[in-house]
């Protein structure tokens, strides 16, 4: 059974841009990973390569030591549920929801029809409706249904909550946790709605500008990230000592987000206000422009 999905030195080059610049990443079985990054950071490209839907320019992706590209044994254990496009090559996407679910049942070897049917009912989706006629939220729901009902060991969801209202998002998070608790499947979720999903993520992966900025246990990461504010001189002292991001000047005061190294602690003599920082604010500090 699948245990480790490993990416080694993944480079993906398009005509005018390097989308990924030597990414190495290991995903272990039985965790919920959150992948966050700015638009154009390379998240979808990386997820596409990890799921053998795109070929890297160089580097390799292995599942339990076997390369995933064109490897049916590996592909059977990976599901990458992408955002559905209401447009197709011929114009509006006229595939019906029930046809799409039928296609999914043909291709996914562990497809759970019962679960798919119950999710369709739960989300109140009209399966006779065409993809082009679905709202953005409904498209997200169909994506979620395919991901959950695929029962793939490694299930990747690319912005699954885009377009969902807050009630539907809470439903999704609950469904995900229930499925995770029942099956122990590995989920990789990329999202821009960081604050809501942060509690779900056992590990967070931050992608920035084609590189993995960090990959760490969420709680451990947040335990070493703080926002400090105080007089400019005191903050400047801290900036020189520790890894500081997103420095803000507020008149004679200053603020910054400090990311301590593991085991590092701030000296108690510093006369500054120290506050824990949320994952979202940490992400903005790390990836936002100064």
């Amino acid at each position, binding site marked *: 059974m699948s245990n480790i999905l490993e990416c080694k030195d993944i480079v993906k080059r398009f005509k005018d841009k390097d989308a990924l610049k030597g990414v190495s990443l290991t995903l272990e079985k039985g965790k919920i990973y959150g992948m966050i990054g700015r638009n154009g950071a390379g998240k979808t490209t990386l997820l*596409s390569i990890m*799921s053998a*839907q*795109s*070929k890297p320019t160089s580097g390799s992706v292995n599942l339990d030591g076997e390369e995933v590209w*064109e*490897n*049916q044994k590996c*592909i*059977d254990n*990976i*599901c*990458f549920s*992408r955002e559905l496009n209401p447009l*197709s*090559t*011929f*114009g509006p996407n006229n*595939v019906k929801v029930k046809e*799409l679910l*039928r*296609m*999914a049942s*043909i*291709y*996914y*070897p562990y497809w759970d029809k019962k679960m798919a049917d119950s999710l369709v009912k739960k989300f109140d989706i009209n399966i006779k409706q065409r993809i082009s006629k679905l709202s953005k939220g409904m498209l997200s729901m169909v994506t979620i249904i395919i991901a959950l009902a695929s029962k793939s060991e490694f299930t990747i969801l690319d912005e699954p909550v885009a377009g969902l209202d807050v009630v539907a998002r809470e439903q999704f998070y609950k469904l995900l946790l229930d499925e995770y608790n029942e099956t122990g499947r590995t989920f990789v979720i990329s999202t821009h709605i960081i604050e809501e999903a942060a509690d779900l993520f056992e590990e967070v992966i931050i992608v920035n500008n084609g590189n993995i900025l960090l990959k760490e246990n969420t709680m451990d990461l947040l335990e070493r990230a703080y926002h400090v504010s105080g007089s400019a001189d005191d903050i400047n002292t801290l900036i020189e000592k520790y890894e500081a991001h997103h420095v803000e000047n507020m008149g004679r005061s200053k603020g910054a987000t400090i990311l301590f190294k593991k085991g590092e602690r701030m000296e108690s003599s510093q006369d500054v206000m120290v506050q824990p920082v949320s994952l979202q604010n940490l992400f903005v500090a790390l990836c936002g422009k100064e």
Partner: protein
Amino acid sequence: MDRSFISNIKFISFIVMRTIACVIVFDVVYLLLMLYSGMKISEISVENVYWMVQFIATFVFLIIQITLCTAYQKIILTLGSRRKDFFMAKYFLVFAVIVITAAVLGGMTYVYDSISIVKYMYSLAMILGVNIITILCANMIEKFGMTGYIIFCVICGFIGGFIGGGVGALMKYKILKSVMVPTALTILATVVMIIVMALDKKWLDSYEIK
């Protein structure tokens, strides 16, 4: 047989069967209208049936439909199919249609003196030629979207016009009535088809899902 290959056969058949069902309904309604307008069943000649089999298999029935499944490659690859299996399933079905159609038309040629071997060889060349054009057009549609589709429709119109009017005019040239010309065309079409299939595989392998 590989599970993914069978999945692709199932999927492509599912897509094609929907269109076939529409075509069969159309053909039945058309035939009924013809009979209602006074045509007798005995007026339907062997040549009519030969043409119908060729027309349906090539243009409407299967070859175009199967090859146009290139338009579905994004969704198929997204659902976890290997590119190799999609390619093999598509051409397995295409060649099945070509072989069955060639066998049916060949059988009719053998049984009925009214259908000449020259006509049969031209039929084979046409079937292969249509497949070549459709492979190229399918990739053009995938790359250029609606623009490619419009160009495809123009090409179909041109081919239809050529077959309807141009062929009759050309057949006044005696050389075209010898068996050598259509045989050479069939061999050429086979070679070109192999090249175009290789290109199709190359484009599929380098296809980026966006």
